[in-house]
C-alpha cells in the first residue's frame, strides 16, 4: 500500500514538474552556450521521464502477466511442458 501511494505521488510530482511556469519567460542561462533554459529543462525532463519509467519497471512491474497462458473455455489451466 505504501508503495502504491509513493508511486502515485511520484507520477503526480513528475507530471506537475512538466508545468515549469518559472521558466516561462526566461531564455537564460543558456546550456552549453546555446540552449535556452526552457528547452534544456524539458530535455532533462525527458531523462527524468525515462528514470520514472525505470522506477516503475523496477518496483511496480506487473509480474503476474509474465505467466499468462491461453484461456480455455472449461477454465482449466494449461500445463507448461
Amino acid at each position, binding site marked *: 500500500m505504501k508503495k502504491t501511494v509513493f508511486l502515485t505521488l511520484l507520477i503526480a510530482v513528475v507530471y506537475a514538474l*512538466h508545468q515549469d511556469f518559472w521558466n516561462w519567460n526566461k531564455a537564460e542561462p543558456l546550456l552549453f552556450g546555446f540552449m*535556452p533554459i*526552457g528547452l534544456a529543462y524539458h530535455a532533462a525532463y525527458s531523462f527524468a521521464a525515462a528514470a520514472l519509467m525505470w522506477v516503475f*519497471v523496477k518496483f511496480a512491474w*506487473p509480474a503476474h502477466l509474465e505467466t499468462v497462458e*491461453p*484461456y480455455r473455455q472449461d477454465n482449466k*489451466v494449461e500445463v507448461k511442458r
Partner: protein
Amino acid sequence: MIPALVVFAYLAVILYIGIFAFRKGKATGEDYFVASRSLGPYVFLLSLFGTNMTAFAILGSSGLAYQRGIGVYGLMASASGIVIPLCIFFIGTRLWALGKRFGHMTQVQFFRDRWECSFIGTVLFALTAAMLVPYIIIGMMGGGHTLETLTTVKDAAGNPVMMEVLRNGQTVLEPKHWISFELGSAIVALVVMSYVFFGGMRGTAWVNAFQTVMFLTFGTLAFVLIAKNLGGFDHIVERLAANPKTEGLLTRARISPQEFFSYTFIPLSAIMFPHIAIMCMTAEKVTAFKKTVIFYPLCIAAIWLPSVFLGLVAADQFPGLKPGESDDVILRLLTANTGVVVAGFLGAAIMACVMATDSQILALCTMFTKDIVSYYAGAKRFSETTVVWTGRGFVVAITVVAYLIALALEDKAGIFELAIRFAFSGFAALAPVMLAALFWKRSTKWGALASALWVTATMAGSWYLYEMSVGMAPKPGQPLVQIFPALGDLFLRSPGNVLVYGYLPVMPMVLGSAFVMILVSLVTKPPGRATLEKYFPNREGRQASALSAPVSRPVINTPRTDTR
C-alpha cells in the same frame, strides 16, 4: 534527380523487407495480423516508436518551432515522453496479456467480450475507423507531394522549369515534375500495399524498426553537420535574443499556460490508436515492454530536440516565413548547409509519410476482418488461409480507395488535416473507455456507448465552432476572441484553435468522457458474473488473470480441474 533516386532506393529496401517477412511468415491469421505475437524487445521498441512517429515529428515540429519557439518541445515531445510510456506500461501490457490469453487482436474484440455487447462494439469500431481514415488519406497525399517535389525539373541555373497547366478552366504556370502527384501517390500506395499485403504485421514492424533507426541516424547527422557548417549555434541564439521580433522564440511567450497544460491530454490518444493498440499485442513476452517504456522518452528526445532547435536556427537563417511556408524549414537548412545528407534526409522525409500509413492500413484491415467479417459471419466458418486472404483483400481495397480519395480530393487536403487534429482529441477522449474496461469491474457497455456518443458530439461541436469562427480568428500576438460574447470566456478563438475557458477542447472532452462513463455505468447493469470472473478472477486459487494480479501466489503451472 539524385534525391529521387535515393528515395527509390529506400522504397526498394522496404519492399524487400516486406517480401523477406513474407518468406518468414506462416499462413495463419495470428501471424498475418500480429506476427504470431513474436517480436523481440528491440524490434518491438523500434517498431512501436516508429509506428507512432509521423512526418510531423521532423518536418512539422521544426516548422512549428519556427513560429512558436522552444515551447513546442514541452508542448508535444516531453509531454508525450511521460504520458505515452505510462499508457504503454499500464494499458499496453494489459492489452498484450489479453491478446495472449483470449486471442484478441483488436480493441473492439476485447470490448465486445468484456462488456457482452455486439452493437456497441460496432459503434466503437465505426468511430475509431472513421477517425483513422483521414490519417491514411493524408499519408497518401503526403507521399505523392513529396515525390512530386523531389522530381522538380530544373534548368542549368537551378530554377524550376515552368509549364502551362489547366486548373479549374484557367491556364496557370506550375513547375514541371518528372513524377506527377498522381503517379507519386500511386508509387507510394503500391509500395506500401505490397509490403503490407505480403509481410503483414511482421513486414510492417520490420519496416518501422528500419525507419526508426534511419530517423535517429539521419537526425543526429543532420544536426551535427548543420552546426559545423554554421560555426556553432551560440551566435545564432545571441542574434535571436537581440531581435525583438524573435526573442520570444527562446521562451514560451507565444504559448499560453492553459494551452501548455491541456496539451498533456493529447498523448492519451496514442494508446487508443488502433495501430498502436494492435502493435502492443505483437510482443513475444511482456518483458519486451520494459525496454520500450524506459527508452521511449529518450527516443522522443533524440528526434524532437534537434528538430525543434533547428526550427529556431531556421528563424535566424530564413526570417519572415508564414505558417505553412515554414513547414519545410528543415529541408531548407539541409539544402543550404549540407551536401552529403540532404538526399538521404529527403528520403527519410518521404518515408515518414509512408511509414505511418502502413500500420494504419494494416490496423484498419485487421479491424474489418476481425470486428466485422469474422464477427458477423462467424469466425469458425473460415479457415486460417481464408482469414489471411480476407485481410489481404482489405489491404488492397483500403489502399485503392484511399488512393482514389487522395486524387479526387487533392485540393481538399485541409479538410483531412483538420479531421486529424480533431481525431487526436477524439482518440484521447476514448482513453477513459479503455481504462474502465481494463481496471473497473463495474463499468458497463452503456457507459462505453455514452462515452463514444460524448466523443462524437464534442468532436463535431469543436469542428463546428472552429469553422464558424474562422472569420473572427485573431492574428498571432493578438488577444483571444470570445466566440459568443453572451457566454463570456466559455468558447474562445485563438489564431489556430477553439478554446474552452482558454484550454484546448481535448481537456473537457477527456474529463467529460470519464464522467459519463462513470455515471452511466453506475446506473446500468454490469456484465454477468461469468464474464467478470473471466476478466477479474482475483480470488485465492484462481489462475493468473490477464488484468488483475491474483491475491495469492499464482498457481499457473499447477494442473487444476476444479473451477472453484
